[in-house]
């Protein structure tokens, strides 16, 4: 029974109490960290609501930029965002999906493919402003595409979004079990048919989730678009993808620089609009993920 006395000695009990106090302290710090992070988010949202909700009305939603804060609206910037996102989606989605299919299903193990993989993983982590420099140097200075246009903005953001889509696409394709491919091949489908008829439809929800998240990121981007001059003062909504245009986050940035205090309301209201857009997109992504997530 000597053991029992070790563990029931007063010294051991005292030490145990100290250890439990440390345990509670540690747990409390963890809880504090989360509460602090969430409090920051709440504060940010509260301040934007407080400043901006009053400015949200039909004139604001349908108007264009103006030097007068009371008539300024966000429709021209929103339309610019829509056009830019359209270009981005049309380019990055097919490219990203096709690249993901190739890398996951067809690529031979070679030096080249390894290089492709490394560059995709790195591109996903390259600062966005670098893509802006690329867009400026290539699309504007070399290819002479129209400056400040949704076309160039969309192209630039597409290059940035594509790696995100490729990575999520590969994960979604990888999650489809090999037995599905085998089943298709066993009834005489070619490899291409097996992939396009069976694997791709099953992987699609996962790919879409990744695409929406990538698009949401692109929608919130400002820095690369600054590089390609999408900071023009736009009073008429752009008519097409080659017209000079602004985008929502850029409008926020431009208004935030205004001296007139009345623009604080506009800026905050525009932020609310942008956040609502992003919330809807992310909500959709989470919904898709939960609804179609299949555990094989």
């Amino acid at each position: 029974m000597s053991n029992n006395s070790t563990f029931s000695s007063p010294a051991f009990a005292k030490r145990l109490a100290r250890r439990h106090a440390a345990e509670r302290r540690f747990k409390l710090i963890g809880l504090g960290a989360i509460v602090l992070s969430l409090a920051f988010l709440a504060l940010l949202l509260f301040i934007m609501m407080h400043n901006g909700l009053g400015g949200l009305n039909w004139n604001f939603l349908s108007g264009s930029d103006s030097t007068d804060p009371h008539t300024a609206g966000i429709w021209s910037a929103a339309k610019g965002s829509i056009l830019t996102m359209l270009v981005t989606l049309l380019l990055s989605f097919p490219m990203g999906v096709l690249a993901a299919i190739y890398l996951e299903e067809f690529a031979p193990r070679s030096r080249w493919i390894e290089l492709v993989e490394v560059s995709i993983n790195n591109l996903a982590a390259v600062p966005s402003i670098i893509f802006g420099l690329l867009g400026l140097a290539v699309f504007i200075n070399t290819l002479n595409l129209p400056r400040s246009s949704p076309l160039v903005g969309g192209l630039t953001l597409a290059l940035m979004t594509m790696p995100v889509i490729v990575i999520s696409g590969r994960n979604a394709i990888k999650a489809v079990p090999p037995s599905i491919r085998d089943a298709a091949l066993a009834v005489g489908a070619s490899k291409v048919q097996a992939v396009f008829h069976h694997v791709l439809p099953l992987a699609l929800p996962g790919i879409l989730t990744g695409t929406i998240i990538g698009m949401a990121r692109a929608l919130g981007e400002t820095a690369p678009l600054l590089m390609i001059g999408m900071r023009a003062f736009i009073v008429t909504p752009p008519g097409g993808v080659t017209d000079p245009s602004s985008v929502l986050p850029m409008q926020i940035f431009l208004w935030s620089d205004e001296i007139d205090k009345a623009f604080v309301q506009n800026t905050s209201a525009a932020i609310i609009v942008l956040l609502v857009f992003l919330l809807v997109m992310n909500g959709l992504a989470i919904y898709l993920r939960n609804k179609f997530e299949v555990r094989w």
Partner: protein
Amino acid sequence: MILSGVLLAVIGLGLVGWFAARGRARLLYTGRGSMHSMPGYHGWHMALWILVPALLAWSAWSMIMPGLVDGAVMADPAAVQLPAGDMHRAAVLADARNLAANPDAVAFDPLAEELAKPMRAAQGRFSAIGALLVLIVALAGGGYGFTRVRAGFPARTHVERAILALLLIASLMAILTTFGIVASLLFEAGLFFKDVSPIAFLTGTHWAPGNARGVDIDGNFGAVPLFWGTIYIGAIIAMIVAIPLGLMSAIYLTQYASSTIRKWVKPILEILAGIPTVVYGYFAALTVAPLIRDTAASLGVANPSTESALAAGLVMGVMIIPFVSSMADDALAAVPRAMSDGSLALGATRSETIKKVLLPAALPGIVAGVMLAISRAIGETMIVVMAAGASARLSANPLASMTTVTYQIVQMLTGDQEFNSPKTLSAFALGLVLFIVTLILNIIALRVVKRFREAYE
């Protein structure tokens, strides 16, 4: 424009070709095994033969046409008055091009107005030639494709080969983008380093591109204060905020929280990660920076500036919290449960298990996550543009206004630019440095993460 119209025509031709070839293949079909490929594949094979060559011809023509048009316009008598300077001449020509496309537009230069007419004529002429060329190519391709519709022709194999080629091209885009980034940064930075010595740029401590004229140009392009500002804000202040908060959040969520709390808090943290940086920047400028300034003033600091490294770094840190938290979450989850079971079974408390067993075991993953977080923070632009300030200074005072690499890139490329001046080009040199540093951080981090995961698999 004719050239856009012809695109539609080509697509229409492709459609027609698809139906024609499929129809003909169906006529040839006499029963099971009578043909190598199903009729649909013959349709696709034909459509590809119409579309691919024609689209290639179309893009080739679109690329060479502006040169041909400009050449024709230069041959016009009115063009003799064109200025000799390349830049100016290009501007006038662009103006004329704009006028030609949109007759209601206002010309900035009377000469452009004069050139608009020959411009329009030349454009019309060359567009017509191009359209004809594209149509001929499409028809020729279609004709060839149609002759291939035969019972024994392996149309499916050919179509699948084309699909594979398309897939390969798509995946090469990533390399092309990387190459494009490296090439454009190197090229433009190369122009910059013709004027400014790289050593002066990388080691100089005085940054004042506005004063850079003539002989003392080297002395005004010392980027060390920018590097310092970037590191101080992104790798020091932001990390002091993000690492403890992110790590402790991940620990609480994975080790203590009930599954209900986890289910709610994780998506909320993802929202925090999804807020655009311009919103954080505005929040920093509108709320956090004045708060810090007023607090500093009330503590007796003389003339605190509104823009401060602390405000930018603090908000950037908050922005990075979800990122650090999710990386730490992954790293902790990768440690086998047997590790913590072993420790708990010895009578260790949760926190002792976390501190002495889990964290050391997850350390490589966490360190890699922090490296990726730093790489994000130093590449972050909008927060520093809106809250950090423009003064390039070497100071450890968090209340001082401080500038960063990304801030200066934006500064050099927006507003009044003189193109190809060292001032503008310096943005690319800074971009090159930023790219190399983030690349190194990313490669090391990704490699560490990979090895770490393999160790526990």
